């Protein structure tokens, strides 16, 4: 049975299971339908059209009569997307594009990309069957799948489909259960994820810049919330169990050839090490040439099979205590970003096996964390704090490809609403700042990521004409990567149906290099400085103006 059929059967089986629990005559056939049709057209400096995305989304919600449950509801979100950029600008994106060298979209050529590594192969399943086979199941979209990203083996056009049932318990307690394909959101952070890691993310849609709501990859999950309400200490208290029983899916970083490839990882994965270079290395060691062909970067993606032991589980306790809302979180999951495991030609050899340099793995991770927000009367502002400690993550390093390390991540956020009459409106401006910090507990010198790094974000948003006209500016700065993104935009709500958003996204930075041992310790861009420069720096040539028009119904 192919993966496609397996996924399809699973989705249909679960939907049918859910449906058979519900008496047909209890369902209001009309339900509550809403949705939107949207065109997002982006133009990239010196490249031309970078996005011509057309999306139609339907949302369905229906309450179901039940004598057993206090409330019973079915929800569904169906999304269909076609990105015409691959047809309208096929000189730059898609299966027919060619790159002068690896990383040509974000840095100058140097010895690493000129001599050692070959350019990435765009849309490998159209251009290189061997690469396609190596990546089997991970970032191996074919040309139809990058044009129609919701229509894939995982049936992503069914973005959400779940049944929620609330059962009244003794006293005022409620057990709320939700089964189906869904998003589960933890934490309080915008743009970056500390606790919000249950669903993987599709960065190929628009890097880190789209709302997480639209780029989280929904998973088949069961959640149970024991809503305990107030007691003598807490104003509110809730215990949540999350069981992600879906087959593991990593985050989508964007296939080589797509217009958004976070960290340009997709092209690196379809790159190869030059056989000439490798044979020269052997020659310098007094050994004969062994490599008859370039060695692909990726040998295999070790995607965990579906089995109970590979499912993911989390627990959250949250509540309200006076002016403080808090949560304590624990999650057993898999790292959603790939970890590269070096495959030596022979045990201990410094050169790779001929059939591939790395295997991609997704290690198991344990997370403990929590969040707090607090309203300060004195400052008339809200402070947000989010913390996560993990064990089991693997980060890239120069030697051996990866290192397992404990990690600490945190966000401190500050939100304030301030009326500024000088700016011509009586509406308060939203001022929101946050600092996202990351500390690598087992850091070693040959890691491209700094032991401590911070990304700061700042949002300033105003409201005019009864909130229908809303200008805003978002600035994000990566201290380690010395990279900055500036995204001003203006949205206008014409009426209940039409919304227009016009914006720009400008990046600075992307100039950091890393002393790569393979290049004799020379500071080069490839392949490790993609981690140093981060998602903002690597996208330094992706300055864009962006127009989005949406019709809601």
């Amino acid at each position, binding site marked *: 049975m192919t993966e496609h059929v397996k996924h399809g059967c699973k989705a249909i089986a679960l939907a049918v299971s859910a449906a058979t629990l519900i008496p047909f005559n209890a369902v209001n056939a009309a339900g509550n339908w809403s949705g939107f049709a949207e065109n997002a057209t982006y133009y990239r400096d010196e490249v031309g059209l970078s996005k011509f995305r057309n999306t139609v989304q339907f949302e369905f919600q229906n309450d179901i009569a039940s004598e057993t449950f206090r409330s019973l509801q079915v929800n569904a979100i169906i999304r269909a997307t076609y990105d015409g950029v691959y047809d309208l600008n096929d000189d730059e994106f898609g299966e027919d594009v060619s790159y002068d060298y690896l990383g040509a979209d974000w840095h100058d050529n140097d010895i690493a990309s000129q001599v050692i590594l070959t350019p990435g192969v765009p849309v490998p399943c159209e251009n290189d069957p061997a690469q396609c086979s190596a990546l089997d199941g991970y970032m191996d979209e074919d040309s139809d799948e990058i044009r129609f990203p919701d229509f894939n083996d995982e049936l992503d056009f069914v973005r959400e489909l779940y049944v929620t049932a609330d059962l009244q318990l003794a006293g*005022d307690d409620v057990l709320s259960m939700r089964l189906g394909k869904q998003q589960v959101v933890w*934490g309080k952070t915008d743009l970056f994820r500390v606790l919000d890691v249950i669903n993987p993310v599709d960065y190929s849609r628009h890097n880190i810049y789209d*709302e997480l709501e639209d780029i989280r990859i929904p998973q088949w999950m069961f959640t149970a919330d024991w809503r305990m309400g107030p007691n003598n200490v807490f*104003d509110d208290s809730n215990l949540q169990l999350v069981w992600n029983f879906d087959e593991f899916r990593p985050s989508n970083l964007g296939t080589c050839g797509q217009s958004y490839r976070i960290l340009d990882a997709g092209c690196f994965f379809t790159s190869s090490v030059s056989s000439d270079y490798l044979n020269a290395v052997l020659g310098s060691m007094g050994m004969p040439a062994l490599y008859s062909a370039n060695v692909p970067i990726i040998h295999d993606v070790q995607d965990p099979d579906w089995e109970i032991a590979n499912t993911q589980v989390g627990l959250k306790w949250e509540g309200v205590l006076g002016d403080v809302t808090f949560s304590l979180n624990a999650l057993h999951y898999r790292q959603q970003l790939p970890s590269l495991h070096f495959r030596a030609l022979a045990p201990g050899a410094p050169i790779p096996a001929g059939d591939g340099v790395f295997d991609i793995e997704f290690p198991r991770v344990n997370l403990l964390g929590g969040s707090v927000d607090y*309203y300060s009367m004195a400052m008339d502002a809200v402070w947000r704090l989010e913390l996560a400690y993990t064990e089991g993550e693997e980060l890239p390093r120069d030697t051996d490809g990866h290192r397992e390390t404990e990690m600490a991540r945190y966000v401190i956020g500050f939100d*304030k*609403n301030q*009326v500024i009459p000088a700016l011509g409106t009586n509406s308060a401006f939203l001022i929101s700042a946050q600092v996202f910090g990351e500390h690598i507990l087992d850091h070693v010198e040959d890691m491209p990521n700094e032991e401590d790094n911070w990304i700061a974000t700042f949002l300033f948003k105003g409201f005019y004409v*009864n909130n229908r006209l809303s200008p805003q500016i978002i600035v994000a700065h990566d201290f380690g990567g010395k990279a900055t993104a500036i995204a001003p935009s203006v949205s206008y709500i014409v009426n*209940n149906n039409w919304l227009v958003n016009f914006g720009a996204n400008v990046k600075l930075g992307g100039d950091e290099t890393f002393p790569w041992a393979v290049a004799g310790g020379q500071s080069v861009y490839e392949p490790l400085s993609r981690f140093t420069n981060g998602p903002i720096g690597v996208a330094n040539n992706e300055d864009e103006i962006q127009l989005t028009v949406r019709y809601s119904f």
Partner: protein
Amino acid sequence: MFKKTLVSVALSLGMVAASATAQVSDDVINASFFPYKDSVPSFEGLQVGMTINQGNVEQFKDILDPAMYQFIAQGDTEIKVGETTSFDLHPSYVEATRKYTDGVTLGEKVGQISDHQAGRPFPQEPSLDDPRAGEKLAWNYKYGYNWGDSAVIQPFYWKFRNMKNAKVERTIVMNFNFLNFTRRTSTEPTPEITPNPSNMFRSIYMKVLEPFDLKNTQLLIHRFQDDTKLDNSYLYLGFQRRVRRLSSGQTTDAFLGSDLMIEDFEGYNGRISDMKWTYKGTKNILLPFFNHNDMPKDEEAYKDDEGFQMIAYGGKGNCFPEVTYQLRKAYVVEAEPVDENHPISKRIHYIDAQTFVLPRNVIYDRKGEMWKSFTIGQSHPDHHLPVNKGTGVSIDDAVTMIDVQANHCTTAQFKGIVDSSLSPPDTFTVQNLRASGN
């Protein structure tokens, strides 16, 4: 010193004992709750059934507030005069006033009040000689029987209208829920819902149903017994699927882009201590009190299975509810924000003396010029939905907030239901925001 303390304690105990046993007199109760028992107010030339319009408004200027006078004089609207009727509040609230409020006193600072269990804290007639009379009237409003112990508005249609061309720019459909945690008189449990660890007084919960871009937006406000403590407010944004705390700056902001701020809800939705309250006098004035079932209905907005429809709007920009106005006794109170950075300079509230709801309010900008006119039309509960009959709640039924400077208004049409089963306490929890989101 010791003897002095003993005397002080003895006096205090004596006061507690006295306040526990003394009751408010029938005269005070009758004057406060049944002002139309023996007679209704009158004004020269005013007759039930007549219309006040641009042609005759000067004659009735004294029984109109400045904003209504201006609208009529400009020809923006005209009003029909209805019979003055008694809006009797629920007997349990009247009895609570009789039993528990004798001896209720203000504290040293604005926002402080002595032990108050339930009922109208200061049922006595206000005096211009009392420098804190305005504050007492504000407490009467805050601890009033506004929506009873619990109620819902579902659905609740808000329309943003361009007053110049009558174009409806936005329609927002919401549900509102109200719950009193303390000072409950008519619905069990009384007088308080427990546990109540943070000593909440009241909570408001709101959820947006339409349009798509605001769908699933939810607002939760927790108001505390301690008036000096700021509300805790939480906002759930559907597109973020996350609960966010609100700073108070957002309570004085245009709520969802409307002409109302959260602080405007129900006439005034803030702390007593946020304002300087001044009683300006008592007068008979035309106020929008009516029987819902007898008013013209909006044939397009909404109709439920039982045929309930909402109040129609007309006048300039369709900004004015087509309801009748009664000549009623009102207390005029000026509220000036303590915070110098507050977006308004003052509100003038015309408090209905019988119900202590705020049917007419005029709001002035920082320069002292008239900025907004806020009407909250009141329906008698016995002439509304069948479920509301006998609830003794003056039903908020037709709202308009008119920005006279921007020529813009937000109208709100109600289906108010006084039914506690629709607002269980767990509706008013942060967890419910998450559970009721996507």
